[in-house]
């Protein structure tokens, strides 16, 4: 806790600084060096950008730089660092059959992208708890074999997932897990491969209930299996996006006793964004309607005012106004998260026929 005695400081030859031009030169060399050493990471980041002029420019800059840096072996220190930190890419999950598609665009000539094509369902050796519950409607879970609930999705999940888990785990018979992934969705599996992750969770944890929420980042152009960009909300885009939504639903519903809740997007404060989210909600509902174990959760009525419009502040059951949305006009606040969690728990209770689960 004692202050270290001050030491005598020797003067340095450059303590008065350098000329601005030399600093610019030194700084530029440093930045260029950093760009070369980091070029693989910068290129990967550029590829994750939505289809836009910004993406095209970024790719035009980073692709040749990465190629040059790679040929000069300047990328290996970063790769080594990644490996030492244990961030080497995992092998694709065994439940997925994947088709390797060669990029043909001018900017990605030697790159590959994994496109999920189909899922190979695994035979489960043990019946799930829900199946036994359905045949005999008494509690089939105990503390050693709890009802497993998983919440997966984008940043919306970050704002309510843990609250939901906390509320769900009020019952000692429930084991909840929330796994949000920021900036992710179903439009860009090259950024985060949700079908693969959902399959992995189903395979490894065999949850009884799965809550899925995507869409906030999905209103952007997407690449189809032929590596063609599909324009947002065009007919081919809608067809491909529906296929992806249905695909994830099918992965989650590989056990027909499992309850799947697909949460729609709440109303948004921005008119354009809200319209886009409503269009996505229609697609989610259509796909959910085609599957018996997938239940679409509509949020618009929960988060609109009496005139049916977006509102940041809404009255709770006692009539007290609370802020249910964050100031960004998109995400749910703490209270909004609680409202959504209550809705989900009541849906789970209703669907599982175990209304008293959270009264234990």
């Amino acid at each position, binding site marked *: *806790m*004692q202050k*270290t*005695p*001050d*030491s005598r*400081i*020797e*003067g*340095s*030859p*450059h*303590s008065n*600084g*350098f*000329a*601005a*031009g*030399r*600093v*610019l*030169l*030194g*700084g*530029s*060399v*440093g*930045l260029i*060096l*950093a760009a070369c*050493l*980091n070029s693989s*990471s*910068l290129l990967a980041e550029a590829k994750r950008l939505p289809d836009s002029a910004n993406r095209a420019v970024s790719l035009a800059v980073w692709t040749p730089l990465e190629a040059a840096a790679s040929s000069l072996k300047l990328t290996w*220190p*970063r790769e080594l*660092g*990644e490996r030492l*930190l244990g961030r080497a890419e995992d092998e694709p999950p065994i439940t997925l059959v994947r088709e390797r598609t060669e990029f043909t665009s001018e900017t990605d000539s030697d790159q590959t992208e994994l496109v999920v094509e189909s899922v190979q369902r695994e035979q489960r050796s043990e019946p799930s708890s829900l199946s036994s519950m359905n045949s005999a409607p008494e509690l089939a879970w105990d503390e050693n074999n709890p009802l497993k609930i998983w919440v997966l999705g984008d940043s919306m999940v970050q704002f309510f*997932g*843990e*609250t939901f*888990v*906390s509320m769900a*785990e009020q019952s000692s018979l429930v084991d909840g897990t929330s796994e949000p992934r*920021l*900036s992710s969705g179903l439009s860009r599996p090259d950024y985060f491969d949700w079908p693969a992750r959902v399959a992995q969770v189903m395979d490894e944890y065999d949850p009884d209930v799965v809550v899925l929420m995507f869409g906030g980042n999905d209103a952007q152009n997407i690449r189809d299996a032929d590596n063609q960009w599909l324009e947002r909300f065009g007919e081919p885009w809608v067809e491909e996006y529906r296929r992806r939504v249905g695909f994830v639903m099918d992965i989650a519903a590989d056990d027909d006793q499992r309850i799947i809740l697909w949460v729609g997007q709440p109303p948004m*404060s921005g008119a354009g964004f809200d319209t886009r989210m409503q269009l996505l909600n229609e697609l989610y509902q259509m796909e959910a309607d085609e599957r018996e174990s997938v239940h679409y959760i509509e949020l618009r009525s929960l988060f609109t005012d009496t005139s049916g419009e977006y*509102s*940041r*502040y809404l009255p709770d059951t006692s009539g*007290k*106004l609370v*802020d249910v949305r964050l*100031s*960004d*006009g998109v995400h749910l*606040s*703490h*209270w909004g998260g609680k409202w959504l969690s209550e809705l989900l728990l009541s849906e789970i209770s209703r669907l599982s026929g175990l209304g008293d689960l959270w009264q234990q």
Partner: protein
Amino acid sequence: MLFPTLAFGLFFVAVYVLNWLTRPHPLVWRVTILGASLFFYAWWNWRFVFLLLWAVISNWYAGTQIERSLRSENTQGTRNWLLTAIVGDLLILGVFKYYDFFALELSNLLGADTTLPLLELTLPVGISFFTFQAMSYVIDLKRDLVKPMPFLDFAVYLSFFPQLVAGPIVRASEMAPQITQRPDPRRVQSAEAFHLILRGLFKKVVISSWLASNLVDSVFANPDGHSSHDVLLGVYGYAIQIYADFSGYTDIAIGVALLLGFRFPTNFDCPYRALSLRDFWKRWHITLSSWLRDYLYIPLGGNRGRNVETYRNLLITMILGGLWHGSTWNFIIWGLIHGVALIVERLLPKGNLPPAVRWLITFHVVCFAWVFFRAESFSNALDVLSAIAASPGSDQVSSLPVLLLIAATVGTQFISKAQTEQFRQWSNQHSALTQGVMFGIGLVLIDLFGPEGVAPFIYFQF
């Protein structure tokens, strides 16, 4: 435009070149820096540029009128213009930051039948910082502590991009001479600037982001789902996270300004080595605490009156300081805790407690207050505190790396200034080219160790 992004890097290189090229031409330089600052601000939301410009124009004009009234010894006129400027600034803050909070509380107080209209406005980034700077300018003019600034100088001062969105709160008396006096372009303090920028990036990108995603967010979102160890560690973790986040931003801001030839005041001075709350506030967010002292606590009477008046002044200052951070009850409670703790410190006899005990008490009072600062609601804060005492949850996030990171960051608070200075002097011994190379390697390492994506700085919301 966040500091730790490529967009800012490119923006800054362009501004750096323009800054030094145009510095010999005062008018061109001012227009260039003002334009760059407005561009930087417009990157978030271009509409709020008009709000910033309004703050510039209104406060500058009020300043000229205050000066004119002072010269003609028109005391009433001086007061009126000062009041007008302050009310105008508080009105901006009130409308954008506080109106909905008070309207909501009032509506709930009056009952369901009475609902006051809510504005639901987006909070402009940095609004609390630039309005406080503007207020300090007009008040200092009235106190004759600063000379009236020419319009462009004042516009550059209020909108200067390195400190625009999250401080430090720089006084006009500190900036005005640096705007008028051209710095020596042959003496750019690159070693210190690169060191500050790297240190700030490391604090933000590695420490703050890592603790948030691996510990703090999870604990505060679901305290009951974690063990007592987890929750306690989460609270300590938040103390480190917010320090790393905010002081990291300040380090970068000071480093960036230094490269442009400006020296900002120190904003953090190892706050977690404080041995009392009073000491803490001399080390934490120094530019805000000194602002509150000079423009609120002392005008209220400071410690000049009776003890009870001093305590009242302390409480008012700290509660308003809490409210400055945001319009929620939790921020008010945070300020209240600090206010009460400062009073208790004054009430208690000056004993001979060992420094280690005093440090332990101070650190834990600060951490206790952080619980309310971070929690989503009052009940969430209580959940966190009760979970520390007894929680049914299990160990989920407690791990040796987490513990080591927290302990190491607290440990750095006790590194003496001489040792830091020695490191800076060592950096100074190298050529600009070597410094640049070291800077580049530092950037790569920070990017490697940091998590994917960069969350906005916590203090942007204030």
